[in-house]
């Protein structure tokens, strides 16, 4: 303890230099913690998004699997359609536990209930045409918001033509409650001019943290009719009786024979998303590794400078009774103190700045998931602190060895 206090006081001798070295370590630790938090958070966000989809397999029109995946998890505009009769064919597959057809269309928000202040900034609402009964089976957790203006929310009847259910955020954005009128500006397929349509809001969903929050739900038939795509679907969501790699491959082999169709397993979606982001992660990991190396060099440099500046003092300490091990310990403690302080500040920086990191990552890359993608756990913090201390452990070896190896008579002479 007395050595630790002595080490701390030595570090305070050059506070600016020590602070800058601590800042270097902090930065490296913050990058490492943020990266680990992102790795964890992203995998978690994908898992959550996939779980909240409610189905394990999708059948959709052939195209880019990444686009298909992100479209399902987060929404998108590059929609492809498949003939509705495929649904009828697939439905009879004996391995299917439940199946639901979904039609997705994009309505312009411009011209709908809320007009954007910026006329040039056209944004979009996702409109999902669903089969209520099978959709409810897929997503049993969906519930209706209650409270003033929201009570009495319910799903529309399948044959209703002018009723919609709004996702939580869609309702917030449009400032709509149960019983209000919802306007949708929809350009039918093959037309250039939008058609304004009116619907009655019959329910607003509770928040789910998925793309459902921003979706406008309506029965499948009026959705197809509004978008001018009668007899077409966007995806078919499927839950298998037994979900395993082998079963998935069997199922895929059966239905890939259909023209213009791709069978996408959601584990495959996860792999695709993770591998696509993997390159960016590798680059960030490389940056983190460089930051750590620079920090280690900075720590070694600072402590070595400090050792050389105190050559005479080290000689005196040896003269007055310090063993080599005492000097080694003292210098080593200084290194550990710098790295531990860097670890603590780095973790604080990473936790405090995680929302900023998340915003920056989301601005740079379309990750294909909604929800939080940086998840810093106590374990991550623990590993980061351990890493910082291990870093100090190794960074301190050389300066401590140099200091402890000084011959007292030469050290005192050099310090004169």
């Amino acid at each position, binding site marked *: 303890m007395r050595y630790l206090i002595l080490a701390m006081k030595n570090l305070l001798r050059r506070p600016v230099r020590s602070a800058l070295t601590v800042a270097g370590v902090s930065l490296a630790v913050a990058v490492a913690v943020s990266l680990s938090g992102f790795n964890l958070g992203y995998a978690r966000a994908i898992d959550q998004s996939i779980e909240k989809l409610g189905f394990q397999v999708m059948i959709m029109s052939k195209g880019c699997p990444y686009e298909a995946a992100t479209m399902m998890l987060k929404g998108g505009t590059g929609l492809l359609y498949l003939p509705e009769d495929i649904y009828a064919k697939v439905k009879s597959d004996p391995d299917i536990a439940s199946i639901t057809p979904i039609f997705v269309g994009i309505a312009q928000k411009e011209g709908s209930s809320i007009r954007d202040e910026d006329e040039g900034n056209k944004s979009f609402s996702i409109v999902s045409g669903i089969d209520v009964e099978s959709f409810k089976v897929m997503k049993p957790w969906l519930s209706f918001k209650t409270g003033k203006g929201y009570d009495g929310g319910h799903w529309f009847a399948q044959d209703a033509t002018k009723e919609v259910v709004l996702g939580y955020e869609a309702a917030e954005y449009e400032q709509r409650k149960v019983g209000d009128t919802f306007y949708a500006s929809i350009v039918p397929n093959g037309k250039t001019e939008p058609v304004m349509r009116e619907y009655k809001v019959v329910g607003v969903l509770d928040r789910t943290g998925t793309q459902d929050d921003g979706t406008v739900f309506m029965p499948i038939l009026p959705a197809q009719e509004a978008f001018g795509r009668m007899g077409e679907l966007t995806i078919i969501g499927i839950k298998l009786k037994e979900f395993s790699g082998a079963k998935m491959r069997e199922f895929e082999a059966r239905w890939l024979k259909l023209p213009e169709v791709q069978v996408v397993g959601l584990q495959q979606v996860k792999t695709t998303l993770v591998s696509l982001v993997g390159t960016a992660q590798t680059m960030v990991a490389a940056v983190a590794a460089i930051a750590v190396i620079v920090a280690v060099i900075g720590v070694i440099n600072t402590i070595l400078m400090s050792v050389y500046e105190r050559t005479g003092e080290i000689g005196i300490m040896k*003269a*007055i009774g310090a063993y080599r091990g005492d000097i080694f310990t003292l210098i080593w403690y200084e290194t550990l103190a710098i790295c531990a302080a860097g670890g603590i500040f780095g973790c604080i920086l990473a936790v405090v700045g995680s929302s900023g990191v998340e915003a920056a990552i989301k601005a740079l890359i379309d990750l294909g998931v909604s929800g939080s993608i940086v998840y810093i756990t106590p374990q991550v913090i623990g590993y980061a602190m351990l890493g910082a201390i291990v870093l100090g452990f190794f960074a301190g070896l050389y300066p401590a060895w140099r200091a402890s190896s000084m011959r007292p008579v030469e050290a005192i002479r050099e310090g*004169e």
Partner: protein
Amino acid sequence: MSDENNRPVVISARGLKRHYRRGSETVKALDGVDLDIREGEMVSVLGPSGSGKTTLINLLSCLDAPTEGTLTIAGKSVAGLGEDELVDVRRGTLGFVFQKFHLLPTLTVAENVELPLVFLRRPVDRAATTAVLARVGLEGRSGHLPRELSGGQMQRVAVARALIAKPKVLIADEPTGNLDKANGEQIFDLFRSLVRDEGLTVIVTTHNLQLGYLSDRVVTLEDGRVVKEEKGQALAAAGAAH
């Protein structure tokens, strides 16, 4: 004189040599010194620059190892000992004062004085620290930082640091080299009083002949050899009094 000669020898050097290479040349910094230091005496080592004073002090302090010869400190031969074993000899037996004070600037006066106890793993007794500081005339300065002290005061702190572990021998290498005349005399007076009142053995090197002769015995070195050994004024005065 006979009384002084009956005191036990605390440091004994025989044929002490310290040679080292400088390029192709062998420098004989110390070339066969025989010397006995007895308990409770103050010995000044005088000589011009390069005469081997500091080399001798370094060997007697176990800070350096002789090339040849034997050295016994407090009855223990130090020939062939490793660095940590030499530390063992120094700990508790020898105290050091150097020309530059080498106080740790971030530690207070009291903490600097207590530093040897940290390395000796002895408990720190602030009352003992205060007493040592009072002994060197620095009452009330324990909380000050070194930068708040004068050169003379810093050297007194260095003396207090050397005394805190209660050594048998205090070894001072040019302790007045960075001090003015008045402060130099005060340091020597302090050494004299430590010898007189507490029976401490003091070995001191100096360029200052006037101060050097204030000791019991004066050893003069030239070219690494003892060329003269004589009584100092202190012993001469004591002899005259008897």
